[in-house]
């Protein structure tokens, strides 16, 4: 690889500058690098630079990093601007040797680069790679150079990882076969030779690379065994397993035991045992008992070091698998069960020092782990899973052990609460973890009710919100988890206690208190009412609301909780449920407005911000619905902040602001003030519609204006502006559906006289678009629009206005699209629209009632019946998923505010049952032309649909004569 010295010097300079503190220098260097990236040989120059010992390490590292990123974006043949094959070939021949010569920092970058390139090219386009690795491995092993051995193994490991997770295909198996044929034997040799060198008491500096080598061998073992048990591994199972056991049962020099080297190897071995239990239970069964004993022994001696944790997690998972397998009897005797529980499960339930640290320093992470299920890999959780696994086959015994353990933990706590509070915490954790979730049938492993009264209540009733915060948090979590079971009066009597904890200085405790209240308000009872009803209504919570809101807003003042999402969510929930006075409402709005002012400075917490806007909307809606005059006060407080969002162009908040405006307009008594009229101009500006994320909110806002003052549109050419927006939206697939929303809103709210001057433009835009876009995603909303149009203005207006574009156009549309696509429409409101519109078309339109059109008439009947049958089976037909429009793209960025939303309007409220409408209309029209439609139906309606039609007629007691 020859790279001119000037190039290397130039690159060195750029990389040096790219590390500079001077931003302008940095940016200039970055852009130079960017423009050089396409020059031929650039990646090779990077590789060369990163491998030159004479160059400064910082620069080499930057170059290696750049090289890796370049490969990531340009190695794939499908990427934009892929690397030329000549460069790739050179890179492939150079990478491995260079990697082996590099110092660790550079090496890890080049390893990643190798992994990227090999993920595309290995093995078929890189046949030399594995043989090269193997031959270097042999050399390095014989010279005892374990630094190289481990680099090579780690490169090999990255090649084989794909076998763990890919779908099982012939191509994958061919690749795996290739790897096995070449690598299975050298791998075993490496593993065995290295294990012969491993003397447990050897010097740590010798031992460490050896154990690391064995870990890599064990990882590769996992990958190569993932599809099925390969022949070579079955033939040599005993050798592997004996050594695996050796590493599980030996104790090594203290240093490698404490720094985690030995445990990392053991954890990897445990994963292999788990894999064999899952895939090769039969071949593995002779080894099982030995390993169960070994693993269990390992856990009994578990040192409480963090390095042990990962090992303990995988080890316990292995035992859990055994406990639920056909070999569960290994653990079946009372002695073994007792030992597993007492020495493996229970000790691991206690809070660790790092958990305590997390509790104090990072409440968000603590909560995620403690109560939001992201603790699947923590020891506590894993230990509980083992307990549940054992209980599958030995329920009674496990129950006995658990309740004895809970008693003894509580006894220890009671003997010395100050010293032994962690015992109580562990007991709470155990009971919560083993509780079946509400509604489950498996029953409790412990008596929850007595536990609640004797253990949880005293904590919740404690007067000092800052005493032993972890226990308070545990008690609040318990209350939250069992909120359904705790009777209403008891729960209400506990509320003041919970509210007191909103004032705790511990972020976890006041977050849990907020969550507890929030979830309590969501509890539903299955009452005599149709459907469940909320257990706690306004009347229940109103007495507590002032204290709650004070507590909640105070919590937002505490350090690290200014944007606490749990607290804001609770505010939102309380405001959504309670009936608040005008004073409280205006107080809330002004507090919320100041929070809004704060987050506008730097919007960084999406969830918190969402709840904030929900809370604002909740106050406006609930207070405004009772007393419209407060709207004026709200406007005064909120307008400055909302305007700021538009003026300062805080794009994250646009759609929220429009939704709040919409809500204000809806509740506002006309006429609207000047501020709103100015806003109207803003929304009519096409540039406002350029952000697809805020378009749904704009549509709603437009709807609000149209409902409030429909005739405003008719002034100053505003309708033309709206229709301009419409045609812009339908011109790209990602926004076309929104274009139809706008159009539908116009038609729903305006009379035909107002839009008639524009109608030929509208149809023109739609049909010329249709010519290039004959796909369901466009045709479906078009048919819905046409249906809406027909229902609003009548069949005649629809037919005539379309035919005025071009004679006969309507029939063409009907034959090509309406008949064939109307059966595919999804959504109940949409299906109803199409059904009713089609029915009216065949019963009202002279064009269709003309005997010459009987074929179209019959086919339309056929499609209605088909549609009605489809809608009966809604959900049954999963096959059509691919045809249903994907969730409209804006949902990714448009967050609907529940409290600001209106229920989707059904434009056909007066028609309850579209089937009845169809059958009775058909029956009526047939009685006008007796004997005429029977034969048409026979000829053009499919036999299955004829039967269905007959059944429909029977169901509604109508007939076609």
């Amino acid at each position: 690889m020859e790279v001119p010295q000037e190039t290397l010097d130039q690159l060195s300079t750029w990389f040096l500058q790219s590390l500079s503190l001077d931003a302008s220098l940095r940016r200039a260097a970055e852009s130079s690098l960017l423009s050089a990236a396409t020059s031929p040989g650039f990646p090779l120059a990077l590789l060369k630079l990163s491998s030159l010992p004479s160059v400064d390490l910082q620069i080499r590292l930057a170059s290696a990093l750049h090289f890796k990123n370049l490969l990531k974006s340009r190695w794939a043949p499908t990427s934009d601007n892929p690397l030329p094959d000549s460069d790739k070939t050179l890179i492939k021949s150079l990478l491995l040797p260079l990697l082996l010569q590099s110092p660790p920092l550079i090496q890890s970058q080049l390893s990643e680069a190798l992994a990227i390139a090999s993920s595309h090219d290995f093995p078929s386009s890189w046949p030399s790679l594995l043989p090269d690795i193997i031959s270097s491995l042999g050399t390095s092993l014989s010279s005892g150079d374990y630094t190289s051995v481990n680099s090579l193994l780690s490169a090999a490991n990255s090649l084989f990882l794909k076998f763990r997770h890919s779908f099982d295909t012939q191509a994958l198996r061919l690749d795996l076969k290739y790897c096995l044929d070449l690598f299975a034997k050298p791998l075993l040799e490496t593993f065995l030779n290295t294990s012969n060198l491993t003397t447990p008491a050897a010097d740590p500096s010798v031992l460490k690379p050896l154990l690391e080598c064995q870990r890599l061998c064990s990882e590769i073992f996992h990958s190569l065994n993932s599809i099925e048990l390969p022949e070579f591994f079955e033939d040599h199972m005993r050798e592997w397993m004996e050594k695996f056991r050796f590493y599980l049962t030996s104790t090594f020099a203290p240093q490698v035991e404490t720094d985690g080297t030995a445990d990392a190897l053991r954890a990897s071995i445990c994963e292999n045992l788990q894999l064999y239990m899952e895939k090769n239970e039969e071949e593995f069964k002779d080894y099982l008992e030995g390993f169960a004993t070994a693993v269990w022994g390992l856990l009994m001696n578990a040192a409480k070091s963090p390095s042990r944790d990962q090992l303990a997690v995988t080890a316990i998972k292995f035992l859990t698998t055994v406990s639920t397998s056909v070999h569960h009897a290994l653990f079946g005797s009372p002695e073994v069960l007792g030992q597993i529980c007492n020495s493996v499960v229970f000790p691991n339930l206690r809070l660790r020092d790092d958990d305590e640290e997390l509790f104090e320093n990072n409440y968000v992470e603590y909560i995620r782990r403690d109560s939001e299920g992201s603790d699947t890999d923590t020891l506590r959780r894993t230990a509980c899973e083992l307990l549940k696994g054992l209980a599958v086959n030995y329920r009674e015994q496990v129950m006995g052990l658990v309740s004895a353990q809970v008693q003894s933990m509580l006894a220890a706590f009671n003997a010395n609460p100050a010293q032994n509070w962690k015992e109580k915490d562990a007991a709470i954790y155990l009971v919560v973890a083993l509780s079946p979730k509400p509604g489950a049938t498996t029953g409790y492993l412990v008596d929850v009710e007595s536990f609640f009264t004797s253990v949880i209540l005293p904590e919740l009733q404690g007067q000092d919100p800052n005493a032993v915060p972890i226990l308070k948090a545990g008690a609040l979590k318990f209350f939250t988890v069992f909120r359904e079971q705790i009777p209403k009066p008891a729960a209400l009597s506990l509320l003041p206690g919970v509210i007191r904890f909103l004032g705790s200085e511990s972020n976890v405790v006041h977050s849990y208190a907020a969550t507890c209240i929030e979830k309590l308000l969501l509890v539903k009872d299955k009452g005599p009412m149709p459907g469940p009803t909320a257990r706690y209504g306004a009347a229940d919570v109103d007495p507590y609301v002032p204290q709650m809101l004070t507590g909640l807003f105070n919590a937002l003042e505490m350090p690290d909780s200014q944007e606490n999402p749990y607290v804001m969510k609770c505010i939102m929930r309380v405001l959504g449920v309670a009936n608040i006075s005008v004073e409280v409402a205006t107080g809330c709005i002004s507090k919320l407005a100041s929070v809004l002012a704060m987050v506008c400075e730097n919007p960084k917490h999406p969830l918190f911000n969402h709840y904030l806007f929900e809370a604002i909307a909740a106050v406006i809606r609930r207070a405004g619905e009772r007393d419209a005059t407060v709207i004026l006060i709200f406007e005064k407080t909120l307008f400055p902040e909302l305007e700021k969002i538009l003026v300062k162009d805080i794009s994250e908040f646009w759609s929220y602001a429009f939704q709040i405006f919409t809500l204000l307009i809806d509740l506002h008594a006309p006429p609207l003030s000047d501020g709103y009229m100015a806003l109207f101009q803003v929304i009519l500006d096409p540039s406002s519609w350029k952000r697809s994320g805020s378009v749904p909110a704009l549509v709603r806002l437009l709807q609000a204006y149209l409902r409030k003052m429909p005739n405003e549109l008719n002034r100053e050419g505003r309708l033309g502006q709206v229709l301009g927006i419409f045609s812009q939206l339908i011109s790209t697939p990602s926004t076309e559906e929104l274009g139809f929303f706008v159009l539908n809103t116009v038609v729903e709210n305006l009379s035909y006289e107002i839009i008639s001057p524009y109608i030929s433009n509208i149809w023109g835009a739609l049909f010329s678009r249709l010519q290039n876009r004959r796909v369901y995603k466009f045709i479906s909303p078009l048919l819905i629009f046409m249906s809406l149009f027909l229902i609003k203005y009548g069949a005649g207006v629809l037919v005539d206005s379309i035919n005025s574009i071009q004679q006969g156009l309507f029939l063409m549309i009907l034959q090509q699209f309406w008949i064939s696509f109307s059966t595919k429409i999804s959504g109940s409101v949409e299906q109803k629209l199409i059904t009713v519109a089609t029915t009216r078309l065949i019963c009202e339109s002279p064009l269709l009632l003309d005997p010459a059109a009987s074929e179209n008439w019959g086919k339309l009947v056929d499609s209605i019946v088909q549609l009605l049958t489809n809608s009966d089976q809604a959900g049954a037909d999963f096959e059509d998923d691919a045809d249903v429009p994907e969730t409209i793209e804006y949902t990714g960025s448009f967050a609907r505010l529940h409290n600001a939303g209106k229920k989707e309007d059904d434009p056909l409220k007066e028609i309850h049952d579209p089937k009845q409408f169809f059958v009775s209309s058909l029956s009526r029209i047939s009685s006008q032309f007796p004997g005429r439609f029977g034969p048409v139906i026979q000829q053009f309606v499919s036999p299955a649909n004829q039967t269905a039609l007959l059944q429909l007629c029977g169901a509604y007691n109508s007939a076609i004569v």
Partner: protein
Amino acid sequence: MPPSPSPSPPRPARRTPENARKKAYKEQTDVTNGRRRREAQLLQLRKSRREDTLSKRRRDDASSPSTEPESDIGPASPESDRPSSSDPPPLACATDADSNKLLGIINGLKSENISLQLEATIKIRKILSVDGNSLAEEVITADVVARLVELLSSKKNLRGPQLQVEAAWALTNITAGTSEHTEVVTNAGAVPKLVKLLESPRSNVREQAMWALGNIAAESQRCRELVIDHGGLGQLLSQFNEHAKVSNLRMATWTLSNLCFGKLPSKSQTKAVLQILQQLLNSIDEKILSDTCWAVSYLCNHGTDEIQMVIESQICCRLVKLLMHSSPKVVTPVILALANVSAAADCQVQFLIDSGILQCLLKLLTRNYQKCIRNQACMTVSNICAGTAAQIQAIIDAKMVPLLIQLSQHGESDIKKEAIWAIANATSGGSPDQIRSLVGDGCIIALCNALVLSDADLLYACLNGLESILKVGEMEKMKDEAGTNPYAVIMEECGGLDKLENLQGFNNDAIFEKTIKLLESYWVEEGSEYEAPKDPSPDDT
């Protein structure tokens, strides 16, 4: 009655033909095409079981053709006395005395005197009949074998047939040895002569010739083709006639089954074979029946064409009945064959259902059959579950679902997986009513428990099943104003949601996307009516 252990299947039956399990892979856009496949077509990485290959058989000194190949060995019997090629018999060194003795025998063999020939041939086959005889290796030379092959055509006088039998016997025992030994025999041109002997009027000659050909056919696909190319198949089929002795029929069936192990060159040959097999399936002789069933199961391994022909030969109904045969030697090949047929098109599967296969499978799965039979039975169920809604209904009506749930939790690991495949298939393809029924039996928990497995194909199938269930849950939700998705709630309660969330870390794009889709569609914000923002920053376009 619980059957006693019997041979393991020769090889795993295919999992699916081209179109089966299609319900599990309905969304083909996000999975690779290779996933619609038959397992038999996938490259095997696993060690071949000793039983996976056909066995050869030596005829020892005491047995006569009319009594021998009735040792109750199926073609795949581990009880076979064939010395395995990987494990050759220990050979003592030949002594000088042995060498002299051998020289005498070889001279006799080469003489033109039929008595000497016969005497020498008998001596040779005696040497070869004893396992581990020190002289065996020295006898098997190109010279000796060539001479033995010549003697197969001996017709000189009344003792000719006896000489033919002895020579064929000797060759039988040589071909029962290693691949190299067999190659010596085939290279010496034995196959056409042995085939010719099938025309002999004497049944013992024909029988010994079949035995030798059976051993040769067991060697390799190339050897089978050699036998067939020399017309061996046609001659063999003509052995099945009303005059044949039972011992001859047994031998012929065994040899035929060995020939069927590989793909037959033409469709017409397969058809002809199936015609004979169809008759043999009614045999009351257990050995004939067992070898016949093995032959059928081998045919079913070759591909969809063969399966189609098996179906057209109308033997499936009989096969279903044979599932309840008292001997596992019969049941094992039958369930292997039916497992393959169950991977065929929906209408063929329907035929199996109409033949009453579900009740038989239920018995196989609940009684104390050996694991390989239960495993294949469970795979058959899972293939049926990949069928039409009516077929899924048949599974439900047969009360199969609670059993599947139980197996998915307490079975051996292979059977657990098959049961989960079945549940995943049924839930993926079931109608809303069926899904409600499946959920009522506990399918959600079974599928959720499977989400910790590491098998990507199975995980994907489970996710599809859960997706169908959750969709039906949405319909329930709509029925119930302000309700929640009841199936999403069950998933949360059984810990399935946690497991689903963990799958986000599974390094497979299709599984990752499906997981995200489920999480985003059904758990936007823990079942409450509020929508949380997914990404509230509007994109600037």
